[in-house]
């Protein structure tokens, strides 16, 4: 009986030791990882090497004439209005995937017949002409796109690297065809005399993240 009791006690003792070992190892392992994480955070906060974030600035300014500062009035179907703006990445990070979104408000009937195309010139535009090299940024001269379809639309041929050349843009707004008949001076319900306001948002993404060894 003593022998039996001694065996039982010995087994119980071994079992208890196992539990203690497991518990200690679990806590120890966790503590090991935790301490390493906190050590990393602490290093970022107080380390001697500084990390300065780059900037990405997509700046639009009026080039010549009215740009976007003055509204367009009295347009008729077939009319073309050119406005000139500059667009540049003045930040320190290269850009990626420039896009444009135009949101129309007001007279939907008018918005729906407005078309736009954008060209870039390597030199300043002069009276609608580019003496340098012109390239299409959105749509083309012969194929403008509907304003209402410009939602996150990709822009091409732009200088988007940091401190790159200014993009000299000619924004061409074309009034599409429409048939309305005015009888005895009474305007029909339609585009005539109506106003559409177009909000333009040029967006530039940052370049892809890079891994730097050093």
């Amino acid at each position, binding site marked *: 009986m003593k022998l039996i009791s001694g065996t039982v006690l010995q087994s119980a003792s071994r079992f208890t030791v196992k539990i203690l070992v497991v518990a200690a190892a679990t806590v120890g392992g966790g503590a090991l990882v935790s301490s390493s994480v906190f050590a990393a955070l602490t290093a970022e906060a107080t380390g001697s090497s500084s990390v300065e974030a780059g900037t990405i600035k*997509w700046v639009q300014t009026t080039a010549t004439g009215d740009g976007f500062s003055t509204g367009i009035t009295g347009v*008729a179907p077939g009319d073309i209005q050119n406005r000139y703006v500059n667009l540049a990445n003045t930040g320190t990070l290269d850009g990626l995937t420039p896009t444009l979104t135009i949101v129309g408000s007001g*007279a939907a009937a008018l918005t729906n017949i407005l078309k736009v195309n954008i060209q870039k010139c390597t030199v300043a535009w002069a009276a609608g002409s580019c003496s340098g090299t012109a390239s299409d940024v959105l749509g083309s001269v012969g194929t403008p796109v509907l304003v209402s379809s410009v939602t996150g639309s990709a822009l091409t041929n732009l200088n988007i690297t940091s401190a790159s050349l200014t993009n000299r843009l000619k924004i061409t707004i074309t009034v599409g065809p429409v048939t*309305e*008949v*005015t009888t*005895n001076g009474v305007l029909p319900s339609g585009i005539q005399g109506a106003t559409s306001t177009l909000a*333009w948002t*040029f967006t530039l993404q940052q370049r892809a993240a890079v891994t730097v060894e050093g």
Partner: protein
Amino acid sequence: MQRGRWISRNFRLAAVAALVGAISLAPTELRSADAVVSARAIPTSISVTAGTAKVVAGLTSGATATGTLTLSGITTSSCSASTTVTAKVTAAQTIFVASATGISIGNIITAAGGGVPANTRVTGITGLTLTLSANVTLAKNDPVAFQGCFQQFFSVNNIGSIALLAFSISQTSASASPTGISIQGCSGTWVEGSSATCSGGTISTLFTNTSGGSATSSFTSISGTFPTGAQARELRAVCDRSGQTTQINVRVSTATDLRAGITTNG
């Protein structure tokens, strides 16, 4: 030996437990530093306002009132002219004249030498060929006179903000007129009066509504250059009866009547 196995077993348990602890406390998501940064140029907006294309008919060149114009004063006698016949005709309703200037549909034709029944009227004018309401017999070079039509002038004004290259006009006769009511234009300048003339130009009949009383003509297009805020055309309604009334309707279509598109660099 037994002690060695015990140590080995517990060492494995310890290793497993350590891994469990490490995994349970390890970071489980990426830091926000991996989010993509984008820049937006300050949103700007521009308004686009469409112009208007509209004409009205009124009694004066400055009239701007919208709606149908009713001409109820077609009472002033006009249209007197004389010319000669250029070819012999015998019992025919068509004659050829040296000049059609001043001759209007509805005129009563008379011939000093006879051969023209009373109250014979001009019912059609094509160049120098006149169509009459009765058969006549005339010799070459016979003089003929025309008179007895009634007129009222009115103006079509561009009151929109878009210049026009055309507008259309229609007429509804409110009372019967056997030979219809004509709308005439002048390529020069109208000199109004009982014997109105077209100074520096010629009179042309734009259309004649011969469908009878209360009939509406189809719209007839009139071309030209019609700037904004100005009289587009001065026209004359002519018929062969005094006291007739007619309603004038004018219209503009953005599809066909506007000036050509303009490119503006602004």
